[in-house]
C-alpha cells in the first residue's frame, strides 16, 4: 500500500426496509476522504439466505455514481450476479451549499394536508429535502406556486409518491395533474451544511400550550431546548407580532424567544405568549407569488446555545447532532461542541442508496431493518486505465 491511499472499515445496523418489499433508508457514511472503491457484506442476509436479499456488493467510481455490482439470493439457495444502475453506491463531497440533484417532472399533487406529490420513480428517501418550481396547473393563475422555492423535508409513501409538511387543503391551492409544463422538483443535496439555519415556517399555533407558541417548519429546524430564536413574518402571513423589530413595548429592542421544547424535527415551542396575536395565514394567493416573501425563523443570540443536561449513560461531550426527520439524531463529524451553537457540517464519504437489482426490482441493495452490514472503503493512489 502506498502512502496516499486511504482505507476505512466499519459496520452499521440498517434502519427501515423489508426484504422483497421495500427499500431501507439510504445510509450515509462520513469519512475523512472521498472513496473510489466500496464493498460491503450484509452478514444477516448472508446467513439467512432469504430470497431477494443482497448479501454482497461492490462499487468502483469508474462504474459511475449510483451503480454497484451485487450478488443476490435467488430463493433456491443459489446466488445470482446482478447490477444496480441507479441509487446504488455513490461517493460525495459536501463542501458547498446550494447544490441540487437532477430536476424531475411533477406528475401531480393533492390539494390536501399534507400535500402528496406524484413523481414517477423519484428515488428519494424520507428525510431528504427538496425544492419545487413552476407548480402551476394553469400558468400564473392556479396551482400551488406559493410553495415554490421553499425547502421541504419529505416523507416517502412509495416509489412514486411522497408528502410534504404543508397544508394544501385551503382555498387558494389547486391540485396538480397531468404533468403540468414547467412543474419540477429537485433534491437539495446538502441541506444542513451549517445549522441551525434559516427555517421556513409552515404553521404557527397561537397560545399552545397556554402561554406559549408552537411553531412548525417545512424542513428540519435543528434547534435545541434553550435556543434563542427570532422571527421574520411578512405582513400578509399574519403573525407579525412575533417579528424581532419593531418592538412596540421597548422600541429598538428586538423581540426574541427561547425554545422550551422540541417536539420533533420540524416542530418546537417558544416561550412567547401569543394569545393576543394575529393568526398565521399560509393560504397565500397565487397572485402574491412574484416577489413574495416567506415566513422565517432563525437562531440568534450572543451565546447561541441550548446546552444538554448530563444524565446517567450520556456521553460527556456528544458531537453536535442534526435531526433530519422525526426524532432521528445524526452525529456530525465534529468533536466536542456546545449543543445549539452553529455547526459546520461539511463532510465527505459515501452513500449506500435505495436502489434495486436490474434483474429483480424487489432485491434492494441496502438490506432490511436490523440487518448488520460490514463495509470497507478505499481511496487509491493510482487509477490505471
Amino acid at each position, binding site marked *: 500500500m502506498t502512502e496516499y491511499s486511504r482505507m476505512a472499515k466499519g459496520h452499521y445496523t440498517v434502519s427501515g426496509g423489508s426484504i422483497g418489499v421495500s427499500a431501507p433508508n439510504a445510509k450515509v457514511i462520513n469519512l475523512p476522504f472521498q472513496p473510489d472503491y466500496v464493498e460491503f457484506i450484509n452478514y444477516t442476509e448472508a446467513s439467512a439466505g432469504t430470497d431477494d436479499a443482497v448479501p454482497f456488493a461492490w462499487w468502483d467510481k469508474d462504474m459511475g455514481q449510483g451503480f454497484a455490482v451485487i450478488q443476490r439470493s435467488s430463493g433456491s439457495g443459489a446466488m445470482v450476479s446482478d447490477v444496480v444502475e441507479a441509487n446504488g453506491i455513490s461517493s460525495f463531497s459536501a463542501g458547498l451549499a446550494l447544490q*441540487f440533484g437532477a430536476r424531475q417532472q411533477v406528475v401531480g399533487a393533492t390539494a390536501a394536508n399534507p400535500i402528496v406529490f406524484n413523481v414517477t420513480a423519484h428515488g428519494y428517501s424520507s428525510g431528504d429535502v427538496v*425544492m419545487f418550481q413552476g407548480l402551476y396547473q394553469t400558468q400564473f393563475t392556479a396551482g400551488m406556486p406559493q410553495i415554490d*422555492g421553499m425547502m421541504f423535508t419529505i416523507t416517502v409513501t412509495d416509489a412514486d409518491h411522497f408528502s410534504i409538511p404543508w397544508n394544501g387543503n385551503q382555498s387558494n391551492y389547486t391540485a396538480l395533474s397531468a404533468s403540468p409544463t414547467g412543474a419540477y422538483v429537485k433534491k437539495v443535496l446538502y441541506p444542513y451544511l*451549517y445549522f441551525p439555519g434559516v427555517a421556513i415556517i409552515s404553521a404557527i399555533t397561537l397560545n399552545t400550550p397556554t402561554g406559549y407558541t408552537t411553531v412548525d417548519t417545512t424542513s428540519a429546524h435543528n434547534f435545541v431546548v434553550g435556543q434563542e430564536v427570532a422571527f421574520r413574518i411578512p405582513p400578509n402571513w399574519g403573525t407579525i407580532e412575533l417579528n424581532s423589530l419593531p418592538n412596540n413595548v421597548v422600541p429598538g429592542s428586538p423581540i426574541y424567544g427561547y425554545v422550551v421544547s422540541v417536539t420533533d424535527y420540524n416542530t418546537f415551542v417558544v416561550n412567547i405568549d401569543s394569545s393576543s396575536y394575529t393568526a398565521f395565514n399560509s393560504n397565500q394567493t397565487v397572485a402574491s407569488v*412574484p*416577489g413574495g416573501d416567506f415566513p422565517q425563523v432563525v437562531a440568534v443570540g450572543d451565546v*447561541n446555545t441550548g446546552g444538554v443536561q448530563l444524565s446517567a449513560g450520556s456521553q460527556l461531550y456528544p458531537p453536535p447532532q442534526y435531526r433530519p426527520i422525526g426524532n432521528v439524531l445524526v452525529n456530525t463529524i465534529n468533536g466536542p461542541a456546545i449543543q445549539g451553537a452553529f455547526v*459546520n457540517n461539511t463532510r465527505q464519504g459515501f452513500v449506500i442508496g435505495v436502489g434495486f437489482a436490474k434483474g429483480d426490482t424487489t432485491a434492494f441493495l441496502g438490506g432490511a431493518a436490523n440487518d448488520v452490514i460490514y463495509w470497507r472503503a478505499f481511496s487509491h493512489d493510482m487509477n490505471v486505465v
Partner: protein
Amino acid sequence: MEDLILRDYIVSAASQINAGNGTNGDNPTNLGVNDFSLVATSLDTNNAYKFMSGIEGMDRFGTGPVRSAYFMLSSTELQTDFDALAGSSPGGFLSQWNYPTNASALPSEYGSVFNIRILTSSEAPVARAASDMGNDIYYNTVLGKQAITHINQDGFSMNLIYRDPYYSGMLAQNATLAVKFAQAQAITQDTAIRNLLSTSAFILAV
C-alpha cells in the same frame, strides 16, 4: 476557502428577503431600485451601522454624490442588471466610476444604489435554476457593520503547507500542497444582515 465557508454560512444562517420590485414576473424578481431602498430601510430601522460615510458631490462632469451606505455582496453575473438600473428614477445605479472621487472605493466595488454600495465577485452564492420559473437565484448579502464576525482560533490562522516530493518516497513522485486553518463564524446581530434574493433580467452570455 475561508471566504467560501463564511459565504455558505451566511447563506444558511441569515434571513432572506425576496426581491419583488423587478419586472420579470418571477419569484424572486430581478432587482428593482426599490428593493435596495426597502432593504436599507429595514436595516436602518433595526439600527444597523453603515460601513461607509457618504461622498460629497464635486464639480466634475458625470459624477454624483454617494450616500452613506451598507455593503452588498453580489455576483458578477448581475452586473448587467445593475447597469440597467442606471438612470432609473429616482436614484438608480451610480457606477463606481461616476463617484466624485474613487478614493474610498474598493477594488471590487461596482457602484451604488441609494444607501447600498455593491461589491461583486464571481464566487458570490448562486442557486442554479431554483426560482419559480426555473431561473438562477442570486444571494445578495446586505450587511451592517455589526452583523457578522470571523474569528481565527488561537495560533491557527491560515497556513500553506507544502512538502517537496523529495521527502515522500524514494521515487520522489508525490508532493503535498494544502492549507490548514481553524476558524469560527458568528452572526453577532441578526437584525443587521439580510440576504436579498433575486433573479436576473438578462441571460448571461458565455
